[in-house]
């Protein structure tokens, strides 16, 4: 037994020895660590190509890439930041950017030394705080109406156009719903993220203009929520949770049983590969006005990073260089922020969808959620009341009245 224990101990020590990375001679080279989630699920090779392109321009900077699944990414990242071992460069989406910046976890970037001239301006400002740049966007996306052409043909409905409103959408959805018990017209989820956009389409908002008080139960909001709920419970053009049967909304669309889905342009790759019917896109219809989501992911530099300059160069390359953008566009990996003519042409060339112009047209109607440090909590709280409206436990008016009271008491400044 003692022998075995000694054997075990020596093995453990041996492994401890192996675990420290061998010190290669890298005197003049700098190493940066890079943690990301968005290349997971199909784009890891594209990211590798981008890093290789970066190394052509900067041969003295070694980039160690680590990719995690989205579900675990933020838990992992928070643990590492808390433990003081944050990666030099990491990826943040717009929802989490604010929290990381406010708490001082990420560094202000000196953009004078790098080239960011090609970056689409709106995406740059999304990652600024008080005029200072804290993150460099890599890709952005919006939301469009994606429709199943085959189902439209079967129902004998005209394809959606850019001037459609909710009324046109509902009329088409009802005809498609009539095609069969298991066929549904349209899917728009009912949750906080969808709510702030939909109320904007009806002229409402979650907060007043200077973001000091909540305006959840305004008449515009109540009307919009009633319309959202009616599509599930009255016309049933949108399946309820039971009818969804634990399936995701994308899965439902891909199975060919859903006429329209309002979702992000990041679905294009998956739908191209997995839909065995024709589909195309249109600008998302609004109620009174058009409004659609804006999402973006950015690279940020840890405030603890010891290789700040190299890290900034890397972030700027992935974000603003034509090479990286072109690789991204060709891989159908969202919309690159460095929208040069060449990149735009490459992006437009990949079909389906044929009507890619709708993606660019949608850029005129972008809305953003309130920029709050505690947005996640507000979102979860509101979610509960939205759920009660969907289940019929409360009317839209009651649900939003109660949400307003609850959210204001918890989060008023």
């Amino acid at each position, binding site marked *: 037994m003692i022998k075995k224990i000694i054997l075990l101990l020596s093995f453990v020590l041996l492994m401890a020895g192996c675990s420290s990375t061998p010190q290669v001679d890298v005197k003049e080279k700098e190493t940066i660590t890079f943690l990301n989630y968005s290349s997971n699920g199909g784009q890891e090779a594209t990211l590798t190509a981008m890093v290789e392109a970066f190394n052509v321009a900067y041969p003295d900077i070694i980039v160690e890439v680590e990719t995690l699944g989205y579900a675990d990414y933020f838990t992992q990242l928070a643990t590492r*930041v*808390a433990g003081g071992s944050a990666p030099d460069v990491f990826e943040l989406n717009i929802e989490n950017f604010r929290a990381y910046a406010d*708490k001082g976890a990420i560094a202000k970037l000196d953009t004078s030394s790098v080239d960011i001239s090609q970056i689409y301006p709106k995406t740059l400002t999304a990652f600024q705080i008080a005029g200072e740049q804290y993150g460099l966007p890599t890709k952005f996306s919006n939301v469009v109406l994606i429709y199943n052409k085959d189902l439209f043909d079967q129902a004998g409905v005209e394809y959606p156009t850019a001037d459609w409103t909710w009324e046109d959408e509902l009329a088409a959805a009802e005809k498609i719903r009539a095609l069969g018990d298991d066929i549904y017209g349209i899917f728009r989820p009912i949750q906080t993220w969808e709510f702030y956009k939909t109320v904007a389409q009806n002229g409402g908002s979650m907060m007043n203009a200077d973001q000091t008080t909540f305006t959840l139960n305004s008449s515009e909001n109540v009307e919009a929520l009633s319309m959202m709920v009616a599509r599930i419970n009255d016309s049933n053009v949108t399946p309820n949770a*039971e009818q969804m*049967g*634990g*399936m995701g909304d994308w899965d439902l669309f891909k199975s060919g049983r859903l006429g329209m889905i309002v979702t992000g342009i990041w679905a294009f790759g998956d739908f191209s590969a997995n839909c065995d019917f024709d589909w195309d896109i249109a600008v998302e219809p609004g109620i009174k006005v058009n409004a659609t989501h804006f999402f973006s992911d950015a690279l940020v530099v840890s405030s603890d990073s010891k290789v700040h300059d190299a890290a900034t160069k890397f972030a700027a390359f992935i974000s603003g260089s034509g090479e990286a953008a072109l690789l991204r566009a060709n891989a159908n990996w969202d919309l690159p922020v460095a929208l040069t003519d060449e990149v735009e042409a490459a992006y437009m060339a990949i079909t389906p969808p044929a009507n890619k112009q709708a993606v660019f047209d949608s850029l005129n109607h972008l809305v953003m959620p309130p920029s709050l440090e505690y947005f996640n*909590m507000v979102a*979860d709280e509101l979610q*509960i009341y939205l759920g009660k409206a969907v289940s019929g436990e409360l009317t839209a008016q009651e649900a939003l009245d109660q949400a307003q009271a609850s959210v204001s008491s918890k989060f008023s400044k």
Partner: protein
Amino acid sequence: MKTTTQSKWIILLFLAPSLLGFIVFSLIPIVSALYLSFTSWDVIGGAPEFIGLKNYASILFSAEFYRVILNTLKYISLYIPGIIVSSLFVAIMFDRDIKGIGLFRVLLFIPVLTSWVAGSIIWRSVLSGQYGLMNNLLAIVNIDGPSWLTDKSWAMIAIVMVSIWKDLGFFSLILFGGLRGIDRSIYEAARIDGASSLKVITRITLPLLTPTLFFVLITTLVNSFQLFPQIMVMTGGGPDGATQVMVERIYTYGFRYFQMGYASALAIILLIIIVTITLIQLVLQKKWVYYE
């Protein structure tokens, strides 16, 4: 055994690995959590700021906390009797030396071997309302199954069912091991005395099994309070908070809202609750657990 000078060293030596592990990987982290529970630490920001008992006060004054406790009690009251009775039942059958029973001992253990993530994903689809396997089977016998995971009154029951499914093989095995530890000659003696099978079970088997049953009780209790992966995958705490439980809240506050101070206070409260229950169990065990 008596303690002598020599055995003192033995005790220390034998306890050393566990004791060291306990101090480094349990005690220090728990003490840190205790400290953090008096602060407002936001995980990704700078140093924690001391705020006294504020976290505890806001937990104890929130309706959410009591809802979560109630949810946990609901789970415990269904899960613990369910798992103990069913695994005892199976273990007693396992204890018979019938040809071919070994196969069942292996097969029934398969759910235990699955990871919670895969298990929960598969159950999410089995239990899904209209198209799920479960309701399709129930429909054969003319039962209109509920929408298990989206109906407030059924969601926790569904979680309990899945937990029992996952744990049955495990606790059957543990109890089976306990049964095997019972000296066979006692059974023989009882049989010679003409005791009925039921009497053998209630008068001999169960009393001699109490140390193992005690172990099962404590373990299932701890499991109940640490309920987490099945909730995250199957319901995410919904519908309408009906399956929100302590660890799920701790995770949400700590890593989603970045309120680690508040989350730590929740964890300390959880610790106090479980330690109290365990202490009561340890005291009560003298009344019913039989050690030779």
